[in-house]
């Protein structure tokens, strides 16, 4: 066994042991956060506590989290431009899959819409809906459906940016009466959260699709790719 394995094993044992001890010896907290959440629910503008935490109480975390997602796309875009890929030719013309897609797609969109709308009072929300949207996008590509708007870089980027920009914009606009960042006025809280969620869903969906698409495609001979890039700027 190599030194690497041995040290990994030792470290793993040490960490697991320490964690076990920590779990066993744990005192119970005095602070009761769930109670506070429950008490503040009426002022949150939504009925589902997780959504309230995600988009109201701790909405700042969510804002930064969207930035993390965006970052992954930015890096993928940057690397793609640095190492040009050959134009994508993924997926095959598959009539059967296309036929299925014609059925499936509306269904997926309905599910996404439902998840989004449900988020305000039961499990669901922007992230789940967004990932369902992304699934639709992935399926579309696998079926070989070339959608012009997905290849339009500007439109795509606008879509990516929409969620975060709306979030930021709302966060800043609500400050006009002289309250801190992201303080929604009670009467509009529900609407604003829904607006943010709607745009976030779209952006998250597009982000996830982009992450899938921006990796180097299969048929990948770099030299050939560079030639191709030269021909079709």
């Amino acid at each position, binding site marked *: 066994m190599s030194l690497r394995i041995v040290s990994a094993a030792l470290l793993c044992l040490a*960490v697991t042991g*320490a*964690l076990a*001890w*920590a*779990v066993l*010896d*744990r*005192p119970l*907290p*005095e*602070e*009761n*956060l769930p109670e*506070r*959440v429950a008490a*503040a629910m009426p002022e949150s503008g939504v009925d589902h506590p997780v959504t309230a935490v995600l988009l*109201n*109480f*701790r*909405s*700042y*975390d969510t*804002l*930064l*989290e969207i*930035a*993390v997602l*965006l*970052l*992954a796309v*930015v*890096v993928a*875009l*940057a*690397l793609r*431009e*640095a*190492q040009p890929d050959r134009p994508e030719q993924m997926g095959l013309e598959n009539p059967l899959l296309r036929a299925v897609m014609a059925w499936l797609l509306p269904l997926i969109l309905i599910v996404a819409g439902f998840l989004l709308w449900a988020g305000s009072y039961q499990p669901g929300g922007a992230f789940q809906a967004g990932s369902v949207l992304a699934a639709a996008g992935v399926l579309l590509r696998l079926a070989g459906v070339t959608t012009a708007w997905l290849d339009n870089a*500007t439109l795509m*980027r*606008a879509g*990516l*940016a929409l969620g*975060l*920009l709306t979030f*930021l914009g709302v*966060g*800043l606009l609500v*400050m006009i009466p*002289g*309250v*801190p*960042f*992201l*303080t*929604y006025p009670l009467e509009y809280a529900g609407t604003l959260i829904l607006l943010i969620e709607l745009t976030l869903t779209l952006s998250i969906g597009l982000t996830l699709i982009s992450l899938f698409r921006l990796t180097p495609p299969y048929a990948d001979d770099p030299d050939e790719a560079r030639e191709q890039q030269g021909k079709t700027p």
Partner: protein
Amino acid sequence: MIGLWSVPLLFALPLALGILSLLVTPAWRPRLIFVGLPLLAVASFDVLARLVVEGPRIYELGGWQAPLGINLVVDGLAVGMILMTTLVASLCALYARVYLRDYPPSSSFFWPLLWLLWAGMNGIWLAEDIFNLYVGLEVMGLAAVGMVALRATPQALAAAMRYLLAALLGSLAYLLGVALLYATYGTLSMAGLHEAAAPNVTTHVALALIILGLLLKTALFPLHAWLPPAHGGALTPVSALLSALVIKASFYILMRIWLVLGPEVTPIFTAQVLGVLGAGAVFYGGWMAWRQHHLKQLVAYSTVAQIGYLFLFFPLVTGTGPEAARLAWDGTLMMLVAHALAKAALFLSAGNLILAVGSTQISHLVGISRFRPMSLFSFGLAGVSLMGLPPSGGFTGKWLLLHSAILSGQWWWLIVLFLGGLLSAAYIFKVFRMSFREGPQIDRSVTPPLTLDVTALILASAAILIGLTAHLPLFWLRLGSAFGAG
């Protein structure tokens, strides 16, 4: 009223600019700095002015009090770091605008990454919530990884990958520590933790995990292996940003959490271990820096060494008297700020020298003092601060740390400061020796654009000046901290 605006603008503005720079054409991306830098500078100084006039305060995001909501802490430490970031990042941005012109268009993705990095850092400086810190760390970390990968050469990609793995492992360890703390205290707010923290096994394990995770991100010896390829191989403005600011963020979090948990919880033994690791970093990093043949690798190893000084904070602040602790706080922060300014200047001027001779080899710098005196002068000024020679921020910081070490009777840290200074002199003067040598010279010497030299010189001069005018910044940095009264 305006004061409410400048705090969120510190992260909202860079976020917005990050998105906008994605939407505009590559040629327009650099130009956004002419909107962004002045606005951020105004916001930073507004926050400082309010801190000085109205004192430190808590900013309740969404109007929700901690522990329910997320709060921001606007105290001297946070504001000091914000100003440092504004200064260093602005100058690096001005540098990059000129520097990146020679690079392929893909390098224009530097700009969205820069803004997001900035947002992440400002988020970290202001954070009062330990989970929010996790998210901030991820924003900053992924942006930094992206910047390292930007050159897309195999070396850059390998360095980025290594960096990413270290960053991810570090974040997870931190997150698990946060999970344990939440399980124990039911709150994520630092104020709440400060109230409730008690010495028990769970807290100690959580602290250990947080320390390990953050050490990995700070690249403290012996967890530094990812740093030299990442910092030494990146584009010059990226190297400067990463070495000057990014590694400071994880140290900053560690410092905050250490003080939040308080002397009851933080064991003296751990503090001494951290100090010993810091000493190891000073020696190992200095030795390795001296052995390098590539200029930017030398500077990168110098960062490994300088990080070590910061970790003397823990033994000097834990279990010592109030006066020694205050001096340790002052000294560490002085070191931190001085290193940020000096290291950025060192990387930028090293980049200029490399640009001038067209080679990264130190041995190709023969006789360069005759052709690029200004680049070399910036390099020298920054070097003075890194060596801890007066008059410079590095010296003032060293003075304060020495004072604290003597006052708390921990004379063994004196050896670290003594040998560390000599080691850094050895590697800085290694470059100088070459540049003063009159020998067979390179036949071409490119003159870099003036902006590149001026930005480096401003940073280097700032590293010197901060040492002479340390009184006021140190006073501001103490506002709202446990050492505020002194």
